[in-house]
């Protein structure tokens, strides 16, 4: 018997007569000021949150960028003439970039989380991983209250990256330290 058939047969024997309980998904939180809470919770992870309007976005974005090469994905909502548009840069080339600028898919207020689905404006996964600074543009209408509100807005067929603050570790004495392998600086431009 193949490993597959044997494991499935063992499972059927083990679960004979076991019935499945019903379950409902509990509601998430419903804060009054969703966008305000999002800003507060993202900042809690020691990310930088800059609130701006569509009109001031460009200026705020330019001010937030560090010196050096900036990489952007195709389809970014803001035009950055000096930036390099990713066309399959190698990991080493990405490592030579100081920062990356992307849009986002969803923001989650309760947990201070940004989700990327790596579509247009967000780029393939490597570009938001290798550069040391990630500047992420989140529009106020993309921010939802809690995780259950985010799930239906996300397509599981696409790769998703949920980001809650900069890269961090608690592996030394369970003390949280920001900055390990992912971008050590996360700047969120919250528009609207």
């Amino acid at each position, binding site marked *: 018997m193949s*490993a597959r058939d044997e*494991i*499935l047969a*063992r*499972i059927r*024997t*083990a*679960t004979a007569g*076991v*019935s*499945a*309980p019903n*379950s*409902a*998904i*509990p*509601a998430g*939180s419903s804060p009054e000021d969703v966008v305000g809470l999002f800003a507060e919770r993202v900042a*809690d992870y020691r990310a930088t949150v800059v609130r701006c309007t569509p009109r001031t976005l460009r200026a705020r974005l330019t001010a937030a960028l560090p010196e050096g090469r900036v990489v952007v994905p195709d389809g970014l909502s803001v035009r950055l003439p000096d930036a390099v548009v990713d066309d399959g840069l190698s*990991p080493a080339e990405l*490592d030579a970039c100081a920062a990356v600028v992307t849009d986002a898919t969803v923001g*989650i207020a*309760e947990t*201070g989380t940004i989700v990327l689905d*790596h579509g247009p404006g967000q780029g*393939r*996964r*490597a570009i938001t*991983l*290798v550069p040391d600074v990630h500047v992420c543009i989140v529009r106020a209408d993309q921010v939802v209250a*809690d*995780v*259950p509100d985010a*799930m239906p807005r996300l397509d*599981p*067929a*696409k*790769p*998703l*990256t*949920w*980001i*809650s603050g*900069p*890269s*961090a*570790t*608690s*592996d*030394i*004495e*369970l*003390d949280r*330290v*920001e*900055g*390990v*392998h*992912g*971008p050590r600086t996360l700047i969120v431009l919250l528009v609207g």
Partner: protein
Amino acid sequence: MTGTFVGMPKFPVAAREALADTQLRRNLAHATATIRDKRARVVAEVENWEELRLAGAAIKDAALASLDEHLVRLEERLTAAGATVRWARDAEEACAIVAEVAQAHGIDEVVKVKSMVTQEIGLNEALEAQGIAAWETDLAELIVQLGDDLPSHILVPAIHRNRAEIREIFRRRMDGAEDLTDEPAVLAGAARAHLRAKFLSARMAVSGANFAVAETGTLVVVESEGNGRMCLTLPEVLVSVVGIEKVVPTWEDLDVFLRLLPRSSTGERMNPYTSTWTGVTPGDGPQEVVVVLLDNGRTRALADQVGRQALRCIRCSACLNSCPVYERVGGHAYGSVYPGPIGAILNPLLKGVGVDEQVDSLPYASSLCGACFEVCPVRIDIPSVLVDLRSQVVDAHRGGIPSRESVAMKGAAATFSSGKRLGLAERAARLGTGVAARFGASAWTGARDLPRAPRESFRAWWRRTDGGRS
């Protein structure tokens, strides 16, 4: 420490040794107290936490009740999304599959995402035997690997090491690490520099998965440092070893666990990075994706009516952090990659009782205080499973030469079943406590206080006072 748990002594022997290590006790007390406080704070923020726990338990129970159907669906969806699905009955088969994939590509080193299951199957050692080097990339796993040490905690495998000890390990094993201070930020920076080139040039990664969504074929890895994202994104080939109990039926179900796990595990509202992927994405990430579905004792646990709830475990480690036994002896004494309360039930359930004395000693590594059940995000009633496993261990050892404990229990049963014998025993006890402590009962009193017999027994008082009337 030798890098293997094989041949570890029984829990009481290992625990005694661990208790004598004052540095270890200080490190553990500090770390577990920190994480307990953090967890309590963020759990208190969630109004319907109990409702979430119930939902988490129910979803996992439903997944396990029709596990065969969910696994077949998962396989179907993964295959449709361009992944290859392989099945492994045990550790040996799983390790062989991973090695085979590497060899097919002429790869002799792989980067690894922290994963309990690859520890469980001894993947690193198996790959090494085939000439394939496995690099642990999680900071704590790196500390353990560089220190030729063993993991002692599910979430933070190097929890038994403090910053000064970690600095020493890095100084010894990393190039250019002579001037490190023991600041956690500096040590984390050293790990970043040490692994950077590896990540950028790695051709193959090995991961586990926190969840596997049956209806969509999506795998999920929850992490903090970004080493997981590096491994899941940059190499050409990705092999994920997934225990069959990791399945959740639907995408919506995943929501509940993303709310339960980070708060229970690191005491955060959300962990820094969660990656989900469904097979192969053209032009983004690994273009060869292999998923190994592993049994390795899980179907044995599933057949255990009381114990099968242990398969709900999402490896958060809240039970370790809240356990008074774990806090004092640490993880190594449990002799397994799964230590603490969950390890005390998971190991016997996966391996079976009555085979290995070390495994049989684990259900006794608890005071049954119940703190583990209280914090478990999927409501595994660990104390009840421990008690049931104790009876299984006793049953497995029936026949043959009776143990001193069972002789003592038989004697006690005879004494308590007769008033006359009990009266005699009470009188003897008043005289004999000291003698008993010194001789016959020393195996019992080695780790427990023997209560002093009262001057007058209840029965003697009743006779003397006519039940309190005179």
